[in-house]
């Protein structure tokens, strides 16, 4: 390469000489558009994050053998959630008394519904039961009556899960009796929305107080702050998940290592015992038969 020449050429620089194939039309030079980085695809996510995402949507990641199957299942689940009736989902939230804002997205609501583990379905509407059943992976039809949906939901629970639920219920009733806790009968209330209507008036006040530019700047700062805070929370949650994963892997490695060492010790002991037994046999023959 000649001194001063560059190995890479900027896409914005116009080519000094254009070489065309014979017969090609000498078209005017077109503007070069910088390529945009595509958003991160679900299949690009690390395995542990994919599994976490699947769990958040109420899927059991251990049921899917390959990564592609898991991605496909999450995609299907998202599509199913998008096709659900929002009011029906809010019925489940009200029944399960989960903390959700009124204007939460369908996916957020579905994630909260996936965290509901109770098997007492009293008070839940038919459409709510339908949503709950579908999110628990049950094939349910729109026309299914309440008793059938409840039956399907109960049938889906495994024997051991049922036993552990009964055990927890028993412990809970004992603890509740000891502490004297009473169930709150107050009506369900949605969480206050972060973008409540109060903020519009605050912006008006800000503009009144700080002028147009100052008010808008303050508003932008607040929005940027809330965005950064949200992103920081997400990053923190990801770091926590990674640390948990590292801790889990370390624990697995430790247990495997100890198990391997003990297995080696067992093999050594078997060898010693076998050699000792033959030695004993030899001594016995020597003492009683040879002499």
């Amino acid at each position, binding site marked *: 390469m000649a001194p001063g020449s560059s190995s890479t050429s900027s896409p914005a620089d116009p080519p000094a000489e254009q070489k065309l194939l014979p017969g090609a039309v000498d078209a005017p030079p077109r503007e070069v558009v910088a390529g945009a980085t595509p958003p991160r695809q679900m299949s690009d996510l690390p395995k542990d994050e994919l599994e976490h995402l699947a769990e958040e949507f109420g899927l059991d990641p251990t049921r899917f053998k390959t990564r592609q199957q898991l991605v496909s299942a999450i995609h299907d689940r998202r599509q199913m959630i998008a096709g659900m009736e929002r009011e029906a989902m809010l019925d489940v939230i009200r029944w399960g008394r989960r903390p959700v804002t009124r204007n939460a997205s369908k996916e957020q609501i579905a994630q909260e519904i996936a965290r509901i583990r109770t098997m007492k379905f009293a008070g839940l509407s038919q459409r709510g039961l339908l949503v709950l059943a579908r999110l628990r992976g049950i094939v349910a039809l729109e026309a299914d009556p309440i008793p059938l949906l409840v039956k399907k939901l109960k049938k889906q629970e495994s024997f051991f899960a049922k036993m552990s639920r009964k055990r927890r219920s028993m412990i809970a009733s004992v603890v509740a009796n000891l502490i004297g806790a009473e169930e709150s009968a107050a009506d369900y209330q949605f969480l206050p929305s972060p973008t409540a209507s109060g903020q519009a008036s605050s912006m008006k006040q800000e503009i009144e107080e700080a002028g147009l530019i100052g008010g808008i700047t303050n508003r932008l700062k607040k929005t940027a702050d809330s965005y950064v805070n949200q992103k920081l929370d997400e990053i923190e949650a990801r770091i926590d998940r990674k640390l948990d994963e590292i801790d889990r892997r370390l624990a697995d490695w430790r247990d495997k290592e100890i198990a391997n060492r003990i297995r080696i010790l*067992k093999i050594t002991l078997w060898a010693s015992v076998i050699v000792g*037994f033959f*030695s004993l046999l030899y001594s016995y023959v020597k003492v009683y038969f040879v002499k």
Partner: protein
Amino acid sequence: MIVTIYATVITLQSLWGWYKMLAGSDRYIGLIRRYMVVHGLRLRFKAFWGDVVICLLLCVVFLIILYAHQIINDIDAKLNNHARPDPRRIV
């Protein structure tokens, strides 16, 4: 016997070395000590308790075989003494 003594000495030396290292009052040594204690408490014995039981049983079998060796050696010595002629009687 020699191998047993050698293995015991080496093991004790190693254990003593670990004890001396972990008994230090340095901050980081304390950290390692607590970390090891936590890992010890978090061990899942279910993964290898079967092998531990087998190892203990094999140790018992090994000791029984050792004891049987001693008995046979003892019998051998007694038989040798019994078979050897008394030199005073020959004279």
